[in-house]
């Protein structure tokens, strides 16, 4: 399992557009990718779940990837967050 923590910089947080792009990115990998905020967890391939986390700017999240391509998945998600959020 690979993971990283990230503090969201975009003040609007993970609203519909970034959530859609995030899910699209996550679906490129076979690994199970999970986003955790406090005690709430969302499967990164499920748009509604990702939006329901209600992540705003300044909040810290933990992203984990588990599976055959977890290294690549984790790197890609990290890049996504740094570029988009």
């Amino acid at each position, binding site marked *: 399992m690979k993971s990283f923590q990230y503090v969201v910089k975009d003040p*609007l947080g993970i*609203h*519909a*557009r970034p*959530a*859609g*792009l995030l899910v*699209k990115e996550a679906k490129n990998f076979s690994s199970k990718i999970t986003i955790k905020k406090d005690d709430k967890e969302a499967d990164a391939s*499920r*748009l*509604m779940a990702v*939006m*329901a986390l*209600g992540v705003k700017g300044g909040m810290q999240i933990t992203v984990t990837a588990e599976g055959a391509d977890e290294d690549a998945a984790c790197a890609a998600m990290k890049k996504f967050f740094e570029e988009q959020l």
Partner: protein
Amino acid sequence: MFGMFKKKEDKIEVGSPVRGQAVPIREVSDPTFGDEILGKGVAVKPTDGRVYAPVDGEVSLLFDTLHAVSITGTGGAEILVHIGLDTVALKGEHFTAHVKTGDTVKKGDLLITADLEKIREAGYDTITPVVICNTDEFAAVEGVTGSDVGPGDTVLILTKK
């Protein structure tokens, strides 16, 4: 109008959340919707700011900026109603919510009132995409477009897998 159609078990009909003109989702200028990044759907150009539940279900997420709401239908569809484009930036201004996350709703229940005139004055397009977030879980998601619709008139037909 609904009584005219006999519902088949493998189909789910999604009603328009607003009064307006139903158009194909590809006509939405924001690629997030037009390119179906959030899923397949339809869009309605609203003429009235009252936004109603498109199906029976649960409010799975009322965005705290009140510009969008997700309903999980009893049939399993995860429906996102997004009032206008980029309206997240209004941070709740010009929107009034009538429900909260977790509420059970019936098709036709009032969810949100949007002051369309004020939103347009602020420079935003009020076109309202209605998107099936779990499009992958359906065999087909088809828009019913090209005409004026009232709240509850069918704008999307989902075929179960």
